[in-house]
């Protein structure tokens, strides 16, 4: 009973932001499509809608913890049930958003192929795996792309959720240390050390790791699907370890 109510509550809680996000995306897509068809003489390209969804899901993950956690504890829901319902909600949301993005993709692709204005729609999947044109409009490719986005969204949401949980569990000084230390370490100290001490070997190793994990050079989206799944499982386990001992802060 509790898990059903917790699932329903958390899903309803996020519904409004998802609707607002897609309204903005729809308006932007229509606006840019109309602009490029009517005002661009050399043709134009629209891309990266899935990136927008990924960023939105990352932010949603960041903003998702505290309010539902408090509300559900108030209503006699255990942390175990909070976590389970949160997982189900994440899966539901990312699945639905992957479906919506697929619909957007099909509509945009159809529009760009029917229009003779030079308007091109390029998805993130096509960009990563450098598929070239024209797009091979096969059912299996659509399914593959859908699974790719679904798993990518799951992993990205889980990153945001874990970050917010880490910050929730840390004390004031810990938050300052992590909030300032991690960006400074990653984006200032590491590149400087890499450049002067390691002859860029660290950045190459990171690049190679992501290339391998996402199957970019090998044009292997299955590698990315496995990596996203593994990342989602690990991030979720870490989130559970933090959530199971989370308390109502004063």
């Amino acid at each position, binding site marked *: 009973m509790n898990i059903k*109510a*917790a699932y329903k509550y958390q899903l309803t809680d996020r519904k409004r932001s998802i609707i607002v996000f897609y309204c903005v995306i729809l308006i932007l897509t229509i606006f840019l499509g109309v602009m490029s068809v009517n005002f661009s003489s050399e043709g134009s390209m629209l891309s990266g809608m899935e990136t927008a969804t990924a960023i939105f899901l990352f932010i949603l993950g960041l903003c998702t913890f505290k309010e539902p956690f*408090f509300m559900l504890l*108030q*209503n*006699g*829901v255990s942390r*175990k049930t909070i976590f389970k319902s949160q997982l189900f909600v994440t899966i539901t949301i990312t699945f639905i958003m992957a479906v919506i993005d697929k619909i957007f993709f099909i509509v945009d692709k159809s529009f760009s192929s029917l229009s003779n204005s030079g308007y091109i729609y390029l998805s993130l999947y096509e960009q990563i795996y450098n598929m070239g044109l024209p797009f091979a409009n096969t059912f299996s490719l659509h399914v593959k792309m859908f699974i790719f986005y679904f798993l990518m969204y799951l992993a990205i949401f889980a990153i945001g959720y874990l970050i917010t949980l880490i910050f929730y569990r840390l004390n004031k000084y810990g938050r300052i240390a992590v909030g300032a230390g991690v960006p400074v370490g990653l984006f200032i100290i590491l590149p400087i050390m890499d450049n002067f001490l390691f002859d860029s070997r660290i950045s190459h190793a990171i690049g190679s790791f992501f290339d391998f994990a996402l199957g970019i050079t090998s044009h292997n989206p299955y590698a990315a699907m496995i990596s996203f799944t593994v990342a989602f499982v690990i991030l979720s386990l870490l989130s559970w370890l933090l959530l199971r001992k989370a308390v109502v802060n004063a």
Partner: protein
Amino acid sequence: MKCIEVKNVNKSYGSVCALDNICLRFEENKIYGLLGRNGAGKTTLLNIITGRIFADDGEVLIDGVPALENDESLHKLYLASEKTLYPENMRIRDAFQWTKQFYPEFDAEYAKKIASQFELNTGKKVKSLSTGFTSIFKLIIALSVNTPYILFDEPVLGLDANNRDLFYKLLIEKYSESPCTVIISTHLIEEVSSVIEDIVIIKNGSIIKNESREELLAKGYTVSGTAQNIDAYIAGKNVIGVESLGGLKTAYILGDGNLDTPDDIEITKLDLQKLFIQLTNS
């Protein structure tokens, strides 16, 4: 057995001991007063019972079953806490609807009825409520939720006299119609003394009294008179406190006062608030 059982619970915040080996039993269908000074550990105890925070040691059983992370046990409790855990942007009527989802026994019609008695606008958002109305909002849900155990932490915080009176009236009405276990943690002892049946007094994280109100108040008496007479009378007696005003003196004594009281000394029952102050001073 149907009860909330707190077994050997300890809780510390750094070097501060908030609860020290607490053992308690809140029995079925009784109204308890959980009394203690600021920082005595009342809120910590209620938060541990409802699983909002964790004890360092010990456990809480609800109807004989460990409550920790147990949905079924937690579902039997409702805590109207001082801290508001409802989303700031949630409207009161939506909070009622969601409470119904989590607690199917929640009586939404009754909640609406008493909301209008308290003159609470259910179209308002939680964040727009004053301190008093925020307390009222939580009280309404607690009075309508129909769980076997209802816990109130400082329930009348910010309420005016009329609303405090209405709350106690509704609580007694509700309890008479459908008895349940009620635990009221409060500072306003005088107001709540007529409502509670059993008293738990907590001091510096330890339970110093846990008995029925009648028993507790029958264990002592108050004597007042001239300082000289009172000083003579209380010599050798178990005095828990003395107050002086001008040449008059009042003493609070544990024991039976009907046996040897001289005529020039006035003897009255112990007053709960006075007793509480004497027990928890120092």
